């Protein structure tokens, strides 16, 4: 389909801008004035709406269908939250208004902090970080502040991370000026304790751990791990990416973690928005509270709510203002519709994942044959070995059945990984239909592997060439010089070309 720039005709427009007669003359100094207008699209409003509506039909969301993208918790996003976030009392609120004009907003933030304290089992919360990875970075800044206050910051330079970790963990370590110490995974999918013991000492600043891990497995030795780190004087950071497995069942604070980030866009239903926004609040043990970002949202003695900037030991600010407020509104609303029944949410997520795991584990390899938590990792290694079909091929073929593929090739410790997270917001009928499709694909891999290798067959585009995109990056429209597609678009009749 055309780019919006290719629908543009000089002189057309969608906007109406207020203009006033009789105001004093105004302009900008000649040397600062724009010479050439930017080539923004010139389209009438109805063309604009059609263009973006057509684009939306070439996209797939949770509202479209099943989206078991492991590690991302693609659950249903309640529509009421979208209405609530648009209330003028929230949407048209300025972050620099005086506190007496934003009492409702501050109360909402304070209440969410209290909820997250209870859910994580920790003492204090900052809602400021904009996403999980920023929560990680903020957490590591707190670690540094903690050891600086103890005069140990020069000595404790290392952060221990398992080989199953999300890539954000090591990247956050580098951005915070630490060095990474990797630790291995054992045959049951837990951290390898023997390896761990050789790697934790008085140079260790912290552990970063996702529990349940990216394998979807709860680390059975978490109590021993806690002893090793706290015994060495180090801190423990919990990557909350997988919190959807354990709400009301097991709390990071009770596992011994000192810092936790919570992905509001995963566990607490902030829509993922095609790649964001997210929210990454952090909860910490009391010893770390003085270092949290400013301003802190507090309840005053008289019952009003306020912003406390007077935190002399604070690490500072990690984003502007108090946090991604609209995200906080949605997640707060979501939690209020669950209350203590959050436990049921997590139990259902875990039940759904185990059911799908049980139905698929014979057709695909299951590298860690244990009960899983909210997600699990299969390997398509058997299909590759026997039929030359890869995890990528399976993923692309799933599209033909109307499903978004799982996360693939992650975690790195599993070859040909297919990481499946059904979430709790699915019917058994949907889970069964997905399992049937996965089993059918395993059969197709044996009987007609080409069907998989050439998939997808009925999406708006066929398989895209990512190597070409990276080799010769075209990252914006080139107007008159823009390269045209190699051939005219053709209608692809689903699967018909494979019949012969």
């Amino acid at each position, binding site marked *: 389909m055309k780019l919006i720039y290719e629908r543009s005709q000089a002189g057309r427009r969608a906007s109406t801008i207020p203009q006033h007669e009789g105001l004093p003359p*105004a302009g*900008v100094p000649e040397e600062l004035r724009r010479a050439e207008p*930017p080539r923004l699209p010139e389209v009438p409003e109805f063309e604009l709406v059609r263009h973006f509506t057509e684009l939306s039909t070439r996209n797939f969301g949770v509202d479209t269908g099943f989206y078991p993208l492991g590690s991302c918790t693609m659950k249903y996003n309640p529509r009421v939250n979208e209405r609530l976030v648009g209330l003028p*009392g929230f949407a048209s609120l300025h972050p620099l208004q005086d506190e007496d004009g934003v009492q409702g907003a501050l109360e909402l933030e304070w209440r969410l902090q209290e909820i997250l304290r209870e859910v994580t089992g920790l003492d204090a919360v900052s809602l400021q970080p904009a996403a999980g990875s920023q929560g990680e970075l903020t957490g590591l800044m707190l670690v540094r502040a903690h050891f600086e206050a103890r005069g140990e910051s020069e000595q404790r330079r290392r952060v221990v991370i398992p080989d199953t970790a999300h890539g*954000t963990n090591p990247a*956050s370590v580098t951005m915070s000026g630490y060095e990474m110490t990797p630790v291995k995974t054992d045959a049951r999918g837990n951290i390898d304790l023997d390896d761990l013991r050789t790697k934790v000492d008085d140079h260790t600043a912290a552990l970063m751990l996702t529990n349940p891990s990216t394998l979807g497995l709860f680390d059975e030795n978490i109590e021993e791990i806690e002893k090793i780190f706290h015994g060495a004087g180090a801190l423990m950071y919990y990557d909350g990416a997988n919190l959807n497995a354990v709400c009301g069942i097991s709390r990071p604070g009770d596992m011994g973690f000192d810092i936790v980030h919570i992905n509001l866009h995963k566990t607490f239903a902030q829509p993922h928005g095609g790649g964001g926004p997210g929210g990454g609040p952090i909860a910490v043990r009391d010893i770390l509270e003085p270092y949290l970002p400013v301003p802190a949202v507090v309840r005053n003695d008289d019952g009003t709510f306020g912003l406390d900037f007077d935190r002399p030991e604070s690490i500072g600010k990690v984003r502007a203002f108090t946090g991604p407020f609209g995200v906080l509104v949605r997640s707060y609303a979501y939690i209020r519709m669950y209350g203590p029944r959050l436990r049921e949410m997590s139990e259902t997520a875990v039940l759904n994942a185990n059911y799908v795991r049980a139905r698929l584990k014979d057709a695909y390899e299951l590298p860690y044959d244990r009960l899983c938590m909210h997600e699990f990792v299969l390997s398509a290694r058997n299909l590759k070995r026997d039929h030359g079909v890869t995890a990528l091929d399976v993923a692309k073929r799933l599209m033909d059945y109307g499903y978004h593929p799982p996360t693939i090739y992650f975690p790195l410790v599993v070859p040909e990984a297919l990481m499946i997270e059904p979430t709790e*917001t699915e*019917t058994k009928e949907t889970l069964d239909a997905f399992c049937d499709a996965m089993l059918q694909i395993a059969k197709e891999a044996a009987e007609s592997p080409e069907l998989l290798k050439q998939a997808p067959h009925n999406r708006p585009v066929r398989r895209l060439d990512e190597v070409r995109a990276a080799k010769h990056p075209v*990252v914006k429209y080139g107007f008159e010089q823009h390269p045209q597609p190699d051939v005219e678009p053709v209608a692809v009749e689903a699967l018909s070309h494979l019949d012969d």
Partner: protein
Amino acid sequence: MTQHPFLALTDADREAMLRTIGVSSVAELFRDIPPGVRLDRELQLERPLSEAELSTHMGELAARNVDMERELSFLGAGVYDHYVPAVVDTLMQRGEFLTAYTPYQPEMSQGVLQAIFEYQTAICELTGMDVSNASGYDGATVTADACFIAKHARPGKTTIVVTEATSPQVRQVVKTYAPGFGLEIVEVPHRNGTTDPDELRRAAEGAAAVIFQQPNVFGCLEPAPELAAAANDAEALAVAHVDLLSLGVLEAPGRYGCALALGEGQAAGNFPSYGGPHYGFLATRQEFIRRMPGRIVGETADTAGQRGYVLTLQTREQHIRREKATSNITTNQTLLALGGLVYLTWLGPQGLRELGETCLSLAAYAKQQLQERAGLELVFPERATFKELAVRVGRNARDVIRDARERGVHPGYAIGRDYEGMDDVLLVAVTEKRTPAEIDRLADVLAEVAR
């Protein structure tokens, strides 16, 4: 217990599923969790609300805020009350955009990928740059990202110069990030509302980057081309923190020698929303493309030769490069950037220019009225401005704001909260939503409560 609306399993479903799994109860699914770390009580949270009860509760919270529709507001200082057209809400609410995630599987995600490609194009057109990413968290964090780019693009240099007339929100975030990057932040004071290029040139000696804001925090127009030249003379990256909506009337940073152009996108298509979520935009020249943080979409073709879009240059990113990545960012602000793209498309080049001109004239009118009608003094009378201006109000601006609000007007921001010696200064923002009559009212109220 009644079935929760966001769950679906019946008792029969559960029994069948447990049988397939081979366990006797849901509790047994959690047997790998050691008893010592299990929560042996119910979460102490308030009872679940029905949707109707929730709506009432949230409505009450919202009503406890005095939003910009309830008082006439001239607040700006980084977040602005520009008009958001209906098409933005409508299209951002399309479920296919709203409830999708990062387009890891491009064949499922051509809609958002093409939209990001179009967004990147719009940002490059506005800023005069070659490459834009798919967005960062906000205008402050993308400035910290720029410091990380500079650290690697100018190896061995460990200082970053930031003008004091750059937003305090931005400066505070940069200072929070800097120690982890091994960078030191040096601030250059303003001279009567703008930055002196010669002073900046001296400070830039040995620095990896020079960051300035245009228009600056006081609303004044910096001699931006001279500031960029000062940075370039010192071989520091010139980084312009700009307001997208000023770029219909102000020159694009790429045309006057900047290495990076970035800023807060809120003004272009997002509601103020008490500070977020918004989008930070970040654009640079071709030579730094492989140092860019975050997602970038590129054009390619499918096996049939059809044009299509994919995430590209992913070897920069954390999921591939891990500790050697250019950033840890993964979730960004795509939906807000989509809102930005829809808004910029709605504006078009003519609308953008008219919007800039309306802001300029209303600000000029406000200057005139605040001086003539309210008898106030401009703080920097000889400086050119865009949509924001600083006036002296004769006593502590926070008190003036309080008194003005009692008369239904939020007259601006007390910039003395961030700058010493400016306790009597009010920063007034006028967007195209304000009218001459509203500006008259502001002047009348300030005439009463100032001094």
